[in-house]
């Protein structure tokens, strides 16, 4: 049906731009601040979240007619905790170094507000197609937001970007030329807050300009 798939596509793209979980909905701030000290960390975290969000929405949507009001949240939590454990094991097996750098933040995906929110708002009320579109949209939106922040912080803070050393390939932007001038503070906690604050400021500015133009 043309209309249904139109809105699925919309659901997907909303998750990336108009309703970006990090930059618009302001959810999932903890990992956003913690793992954006490098693009590599951001990418791996993003992949893990896409996986958990997809599985969570998939299962929640499939079972949506069986959900009892009282145990609903517990069921969401149980599902999410299971898939986060799986993601954590997979990361430890295949990208061990990065998983160590991510520290407690992989298991902390369990309490990432984004996933529970999407389960509650979308997956528990919509069909499979819609729920999956939403999961991919929000997951990819999350990953993009994290990578933007990660790129800013790593470039300014470490002087270059290095990706996926673990899997045997490298991609970097000239660390040596920038390094002496790097602002180390960017890869430390204050840098995280400042970058996120600034980026949200920029996003809000762009959104209000967009709204003004649309209105006029």
């Amino acid at each position: 049906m043309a209309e249904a798939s139109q809105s699925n596509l919309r659901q997907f793209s909303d998750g990336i731009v108009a309703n970006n979980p990090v930059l618009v909905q302001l959810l999932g701030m903890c990992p956003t601040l913690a793992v954006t000290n490098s693009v590599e960390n951001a990418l791996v975290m993003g992949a893990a979240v896409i996986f958990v969000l997809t599985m969570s929405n998939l299962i929640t949507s499939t079972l949506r007619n069986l959900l009892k009001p009282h145990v609903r949240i517990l069921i969401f939590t149980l599902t999410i905790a299971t898939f986060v454990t799986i993601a954590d094991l997979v990361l430890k097996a295949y990208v061990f170094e990065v998983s160590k750098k991510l520290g407690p933040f992989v298991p902390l995906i369990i309490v990432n507000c984004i996933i529970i929110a999407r389960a509650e708002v979308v997956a528990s009320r919509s069909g499979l197609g819609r729920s999956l579109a939403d999961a991919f949209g929000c997951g990819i939106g999350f990953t993009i937001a994290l990578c933007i922040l990660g790129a800013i912080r790593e470039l300014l803070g470490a002087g270059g970007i290095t990706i996926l050393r673990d899997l045997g390939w490298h991609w970097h932007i000239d660390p040596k030329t920038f390094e002496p001038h790097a602002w180390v503070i960017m890869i430390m906690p204050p840098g995280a807050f400042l970058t996120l604050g600034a980026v949200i400021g920029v996003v809000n500015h762009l959104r209000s300009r967009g709204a003004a133009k649309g209105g006029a």
Partner: protein
Amino acid sequence: MDFGALVGIFIGAVLINNFVLAQFLGICPFLGVSRKVDMAFGMGCAVTFVMTVSGVVTWLIVHGILAPVGEWLLGDKEALFFLKYVAFIMVIASMVQLVEMYLKKFFRSLYTAFGVFLPLITTNCAILGACLLIDMNEVYQQSLLSSAVFAFGGGLGFALAITIMAGIREHVRFSDVPKPLQGAGITLLTAGILALAFMGFAGIGK
């Protein structure tokens, strides 16, 4: 474990490795509940309580249930550890339920004041974060007392950060913040400066 070491752990958790400003735990309530000092302080107290109890209970679950049962069933005390995360979050969710029920019965006014924020303590990454940090640390794994001190210090550190932030925000309300930065933007920038300040505590251990 001698007293000096415990004090070190405590100060470490509150100041040097502050849960909010250095370890990025509990950011959502930090941004959401830091508007007024009394609410912030109340939230800080609730979180400290839940965090300390959860830290102790999850430690006991790992050492008192998962390890012995793993040993008994499968001969390896670490065999059942893959169930840790599920166990932790279920414990925390139930604990918050209990706190909620207790408050509703005995401290009605406090209960209504908190409103929706009370159940939100479950998804507060600081609580689960504290349990995970205890679990990941060799020293705390060997001593329940040091884990409890760490969890308690972590909660107090959160309370400290959120109360300071509330104090600042009450003032910022009357300043001329540029529109795009209002709300989350300015709070994050302020947090950044606070984090910078707290960085000065590093090295106190020496």
